[in-house]
């Protein structure tokens, strides 16, 4: 598997031929439909969001829509629920991204070896990424977490009856461990993503360096710590930043497993904005919270763009 890091020297990105020079507009033309469409559908809404965020606007009180300056931002940044939501988002995202990166790296290291049925193992391992997220969230909630007929308590009960005091385990996972209950299906879903990125990194490793180290007598652990891990660094970074950007947006799992509860224990920012919009009908506040989320995302995305553009430059060289 080639990766961008050791790809064959890419052809120079100059115009293919200097001879038939076309006018710049003729060359830009194929790009324009996609560009204009993207600007209209993705950029315009954000301009509107910024405008909305300065309005006092609750559709339950239609007559009272007026300009209110930055007061929505003041509300959003000081509101207890919003603060809880920011914190929950950070906790959930960190849990999911870090756990799935560790698991994904472990799986990738296993898959980097030759063994019987490796293709099948890889296919099995990527499947959780393909199952519809809302389906896996609901399935985890009802088939795995359910206190009486859920699989987790079933297995624990079996262990207790086989090796322990014979009692029945009836833990209510969703109520008692709400955050973990939301995180588990997400970790399950995102581990294959991390695995595929790290695997691509492993297989792009320079064979010469590995061979040289082996000839010099490096053991497996040394080789991993001093050669493989530094080489994997930018792949791991890429997985972490992209994973963060995708996981921060999680809505399905919270919506279907806990509805943000108990209390606000698992209310994440996307879910809180959704509630502000469609339960409280406070459009101005929802818009302000949206702008805050965008700003947070821009900070994370800057790292992402930097990682991607460094990989990208390596390719263009």
């Amino acid at each position, binding site marked *: 598997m080639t990766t961008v890091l050791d790809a064959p020297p890419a052809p120079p990105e100059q115009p293919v031929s200097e001879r038939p020079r076309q006018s710049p507009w003729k060359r830009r033309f194929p790009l324009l439909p996609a560009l204009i469409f993207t600007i209209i559908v993705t950029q315009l809404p954000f301009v509107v969001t910024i405008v909305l965020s300065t309005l006092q606007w609750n559709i339950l009180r239609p007559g009272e829509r007026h300009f209110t300056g930055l007061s929505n931002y003041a509300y959003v940044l000081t509101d207890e629920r919003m603060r809880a939501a920011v914190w929950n988002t950070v906790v959930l995202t960190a849990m999911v991204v870090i756990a799935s990166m560790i698991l994904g790296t472990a799986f990738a290291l296993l898959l980097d070896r030759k063994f019987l049925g490796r293709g099948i193992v890889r296919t099995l391992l990527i499947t959780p990424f393909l199952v519809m997220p809302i389906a896996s969230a609901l399935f*985890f909630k009802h088939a795995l977490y359910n206190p009486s007929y859920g699989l987790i308590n079933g297995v624990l009960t079996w262990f207790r009856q086989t090796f322990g005091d014979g009692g029945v385990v009836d833990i209510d996972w969703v109520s008692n461990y709400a955050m973990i209950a939301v995180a588990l299906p997400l970790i399950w879903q995102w581990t294959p993503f991390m695995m595929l990125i790290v*695997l691509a990194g492993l297989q792009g490793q320079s064979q010469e360096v590995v061979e040289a180290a082996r000839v010099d007598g490096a053991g497996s652990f040394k080789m991993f710590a001093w050669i493989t891990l530094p080489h994997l660094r930018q792949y791991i970074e890429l997985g972490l930043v992209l994973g963060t950007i995708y996981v921060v947006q999680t809505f399905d799992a919270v919506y279907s497993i806990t509805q943000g509860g108990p209390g606000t224990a698992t209310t994440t920012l996307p879910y809180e904005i959704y509630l502000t919009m469609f339960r409280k009908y406070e459009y101005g506040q929802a818009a302000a919270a949206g702008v805050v989320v965008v700003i947070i995302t821009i900070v994370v995305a800057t790292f992402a763009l930097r990682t991607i553009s460094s990989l990208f430059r390596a390719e263009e060289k």
Partner: protein
Amino acid sequence: MATVTATDTRVPRHTPNVQGRRRRFRPGLGLVAWAAARFFFFPVLWMLLLSFRNEADAATSPPTFLAPFTLDQFSEVIGRGAMPYLTNSLIAAGFSTLGVLMLALPAAYALSIMPIAKWTDVLFFFLSTKFLPAIAALLPLYLAVKALGMLDNIWTLVILYLAMNLPLAVWMIRSFLSEVPREIIEAAQVDGAGFRIIITKILLPIILPGLAATSLICFIFAWNEFLFAVNLTATQAATAPVFLVGFITSEGLFLARLSAVAVIVSLPVVLAGWAAQDKLVRGMTMGAVK
């Protein structure tokens, strides 16, 4: 090696014997990998097992591994009107993917084969739109869609999914196009071939596998999308994920049926993903990792 390294067979990187030496056959680690895969895959297997039984057998306490086989849940789910939702999903995912290809292919061409000035800026602009959280766009989109009378209309979802997947497709297709040998295109240009001829007669056949993978990935994301689907549709245009959520809230004892619905709505995408698995990582990382 073939299964794992099939991403780019045109450019053999390492001689096979070197690879053979490094990736030694280690039966012990292979067993560990198999055990991990079984554990990790088990929820999917459990979903399948539950979907083929009666409600009473599915919700026993404690759960039982084997139970009598029945197809009742599937016929029940289809009988209760799953089809319109699946059709909506197919329309939303299918047409948006078609639109993505139609817009992304020329754009990727302008960004790789005949790069315009500032093409990297444009490329990164596309990428940055992918990073904007959908939730922040929901309110203005909802208001706009409502004002246009397009709520609960499947074409609204088609347009939104098109915008959602376009950056990914531009990046992916661009990365496939930049692998096409320059000499071929130059030769065609010398012979006087125009934009259309170059795309349809020369580039398309070469990058067809890449385009197929791009389409599958766009299809997967559109099919699984939930936030816009649940908030912008009601009865007419609701897609499979909305059906899934609506289905369980109205049911009592439902575990087997929930599993059957989950299997039905996930199956198309799981198959598509298995088919595109070699290119999956390229799509998820916008072509940064191949």
